[in-house]
């Protein structure tokens, strides 16, 4: 009866009230930042005296912001591709190969997710300084890929586990090579998992900030780094615009992921 809404009595209205408050609590900052980006107040006063698009004009007119946006997109795409390709290989090895240490391999691949990101950031920074990877595209991409890898491994292992391997074996028995069978039978069957993995890997890179703060330099900084450095100097409404861009992009990708998952059912 405690798990049946109709039999909860007065308690259900308490739960509903808390639910509404929490929903408001979760939505508030997101809605607020979007409204703020259209407000005309230079000092981020809310509610603003009027509405304007001038901060958007300022954002796109500033080559620094624009470059950061481009850097974020490029790094995100490259990191997503690497995390998914490497993750797919590892997932195949763990769910198909007869690997004795599969459990340990799985744990090892999930470790970067468990470690506090600041520890990883300082460690990678220390290494990158010696290897000359700081402020380079490849440094950004690989360090983002390591953060995204655990997520792609989880998604792809789940995808492979829900796909019957005997279908792939059947293709092989019919004369296809192992790789041909994978390419034409296995991968198309788990394409939904692959696309989801790409989206989430991109989102992780798109949002990555702690490692990026260390990686960034005069040559290359991603959008969150630019946001962070600007924030610490001056609270301008252009920050709200950049935040809205970051949010909008994430929301669109999440929506695509949700639609795909829905269609897959």
């Amino acid at each position: 009866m405690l798990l049946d809404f109709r039999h909860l009595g007065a308690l259900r209205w308490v739960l509903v009230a808390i639910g509404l408050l929490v929903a408001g609590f979760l939505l508030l900052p997101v809605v607020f930042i979007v409204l703020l980006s259209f407000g005309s107040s230079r000092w981020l006063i809310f509610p603003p005296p009027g509405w304007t698009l001038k901060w958007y004009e300022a954002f796109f007119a500033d080559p620094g912001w624009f470059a950061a946006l481009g850097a974020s997109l490029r790094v995100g795409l490259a990191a997503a591709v690497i995390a998914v390709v490497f993750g797919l290989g590892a997932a195949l090895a763990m769910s198909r190969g007869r690997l004795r240490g599969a459990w340990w391999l799985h744990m090892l691949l999930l470790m970067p997710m468990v470690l506090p990101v600041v520890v990883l950031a300082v460690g990678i920074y220390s290494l990158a300084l010696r290897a000359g990877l700081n402020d380079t595209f490849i440094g950004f991409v690989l360090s983002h890929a390591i953060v995204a890898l655990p997520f792609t491994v989880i998604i792809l292992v789940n995808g492979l586990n829900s796909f019957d391997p005997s279908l792939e074996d059947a293709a092989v028995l019919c004369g296809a090579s192992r790789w041909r069978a994978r390419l034409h039978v296995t991968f198309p069957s788990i394409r939904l998992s692959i696309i989801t993995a790409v989206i989430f890997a991109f989102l992780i890179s798109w949002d990555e900030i702690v490692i990026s703060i260390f990686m960034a330099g005069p040559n290359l900084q991603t959008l969150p780094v630019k946001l962070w450095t600007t924030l610490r100097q001056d609270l301008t409404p252009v920050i709200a615009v950049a935040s809205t861009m970051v949010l909008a992009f994430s929301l669109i990708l999440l929506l695509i992921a949700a639609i795909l998952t829905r269609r897959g059912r």
Partner: protein
Amino acid sequence: MQTGPDKTRSVQLPGPAPRGWRAALRARLEGATATLAIPALLLVLFFFLLPVALLLARSILEPEAGLGNYAELLQSGAYRTVLLNTFTIASVVTVVTVLIGFPVAWLIAVSNRFWGMALLGLIFISMWTSLLTRSFAWLILLQSNGVINRMLKGLGLISEPLSLVNNMTGVVIGMTYILLPFVIFPLLSTMRAIEPGLLRAAALCGANRWQCFLHVFLPACVPGIAAGALMVFVMSLGYFITPVMLGGSSTMMLAELIVHLVQSLLRWGLGAAAAFILFAITLAAYALQLRLFDPLRSAKGGR
């Protein structure tokens, strides 16, 4: 047609090939599959194991060999305050997220499909949208002349603006907001696994609603609460962005100290030692969690 060893698998059906040969082929095919893990392993080796090992080495070698860095961290009053701050904030955030997360998970567990999905979707969205952006929003919202303070004033609840940001209150609000999903999800899956018959049986045996809650429902939720609380506690120990943005000079946490030591003071040995303390605490907590509930085992079917 294909050539190479793969083709020979098609011979398997009618194939009168000797057993040993077939087994060898199979082993070879599966061995080849195992090698596919190599790129991922190399990435983990060079961008995870090596950096962590390097950090450990620096923490005991710089500026001179020995455990001096660790001794300094644990003996100096300033660093001890940082450690204390970190544990205090993590504990408060854990308690608050569990207190808020429990009714929310419960509501999702009992509501119909549509509302359940709507709430879950909202939580999921907030989990996957920019941490930096949301912390920034809270910074503006919580200012002394910000929306929250003016709203409270308008309602007549306060006469002077509350200081909600640049102190521990700000950090706790921001981190609760960000970590709430991590307690709701495990709690929800625990609640969904509870057999409703169990509660019905308790009711049939004469338990009232409160007894039912206290003696049946709550104990059944304990694994979820423990998993969520541990997760939130461990994650908040290492948080950097939110505490820096919403906290003040007196609420410095471990992650901020590490970054400060390494980036501003260039005291790599000390910073690495602090990072390693954080790493060790985190590992211990996850080892505990693995002992209590193996996520891999539960991911492979079964609860």
